């Protein structure tokens, strides 16, 4: 039992690591990873929604009729997204400003809906939480990693702390739109290389 919880948890960290293994939910990955802080913030917000919606979906899985399943999932997810939105405005307003419309857009992030449909709707609540937590943390770490690469090269800082001397002129391409695509693409290549071994 414990073993399978661990399995559901760890698969999100490597075997099915979003967004690298499952190439889904790319928009926030590209849009908010100019810095580690944004990336992790976005990741945590998504994780929160993922865990809560997974939990509720799993809890209600025997009550929800199959035909309106997706509609119910969307209502559940949207509810938690709105909660995150409100909480972030109330407590971490600066971060909320930076993440912009990508917070409400968690609602269409197919990782969230995808986990509800593919996992939570079919499994017990504790498993669903493990799954949500694993996926969420995997997603957060990926965003953080991408944020770290882009922030360090593109701004010369990590979490706002300068990495290089004062003469350093940052490689701002990395924090711009094209840099996001290129950087994610190259990281994906790296993952493929590692995955092959």
């Amino acid at each position, binding site marked *: 039992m414990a073993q399978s919880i661990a399995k559901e948890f760890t698969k999100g960290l490597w075997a099915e690591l979003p967004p690298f293994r499952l190439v889904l939910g790319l928009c926030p990955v590209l849009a908010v990873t100019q810095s580690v802080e944004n990336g992790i913030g976005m990741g945590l917000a998504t994780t929160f929604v993922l865990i809560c919606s997974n939990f509720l979906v799993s809890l209600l899985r025997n009550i929800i009729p199959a035909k309106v399943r997706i509609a119910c999932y969307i209502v559940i997810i949207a509810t938690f997204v709105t909660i995150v939105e409100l909480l972030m405005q109330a407590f971490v307003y600066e971060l909320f400003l930076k993440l912009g419309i990508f917070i409400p857009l968690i609602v269409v992030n197919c990782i969230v809906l995808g986990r509800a449909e593919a996992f939570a709707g079919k499994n017990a609540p504790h498993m669903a939480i493990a799954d949500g937590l694993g996926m969420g943390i995997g997603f957060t770490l990926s965003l953080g990693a991408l944020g770290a690469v882009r922030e360090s090269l593109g701004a010369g800082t990590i979490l706002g702390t300068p990495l290089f001397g004062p003469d350093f*002129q*940052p*490689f*701002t*391409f*990395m924090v*711009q739109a*094209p840099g996001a695509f*290129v950087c994610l693409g190259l990281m994906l*290549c790296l993952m493929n290389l590692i995955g092959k071994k």
Partner: protein
Amino acid sequence: MHKQNKYTVSHAPFWHDGDTIATMNLNLILAALPAAIFGILKFGAPALGVLSLAVSSAILWELAFNFISKRDITIADYDAAAIGMLVGMMLPATAPWWIVLIGTLIAVVVGKMIYGGIGGNPFNPAVVGIAVLLVSWKQIFDFDAALLNYEFGFTALAPLAALKHQGVAAMDLFQTRDLAMGCQVGSIGTVFGAGIILGGIYLILRGYIRWEISLSYVAGILLTAFLFRLVNPDIYASPLFHLFTGYTLLGAFFLATENSSSPVNLVPMIIYGAMGGVMTILIRNIGSYPDGTVFAILLINLINPLIDRIRPKALGKGVNNA
């Protein structure tokens, strides 16, 4: 006659016109030399330094990628050298060494090698390299600041930047003849317009570039600039001013004509070249960059696969003999 020779067996045709990728690229470098040498004479040792670092680093990046990807060594085709040469020519003589290295790295690796090497690249590698530098370290391409320490015998202002800042009054500072003969501030390989044209004509005559692209590019520049000027001569500069400044000529003869990212059929070549010229002037006149060549070329590279579908009907296609 009992010992048989081994004869070469292979398939027809048994003749070839003799071209190779290496000779093509060497001809490109040769054609670029007048403009490059002029740049070296004018900007001195730093210019030579930038050019040689660009060429050698481009070759080394390609070699490194060959090793890492465990593929055949391809530097003997001089393609990396050609790319390095073009990147170097688009940089100011005072570009720091690391800018040159990053520029050629992006050009060769991101622009070309990851697409499978020569022929696979959808965008002009040299232009990709410069574009990335341009959006990252804008100040490097501020030629006025970059060449502050030089003494020139002429108006030491980068014409296009002057145009952007002072408006059309800037035009009076420059004679078209002087611009064409290289009396202007700019990057190493693009100030000597006459030299680039010379190289371009050489390449056209030798059949190494598709002249349709170059000519329609130049026509696009002249026509669009002319129309703008017709509408409001108080704001917009003259066609010839645009032709002999910035990367225009290099773009028309050396950049837009890069093989892999440009069309090969007549109508598409003309659309492609003309679009390049039109976009260059649009960016200069109403966009935010002083020189639009780099982004205009990326844009036409982007539409290339789509427009190159316009091609003459192959023999017998859609024919009804009855």
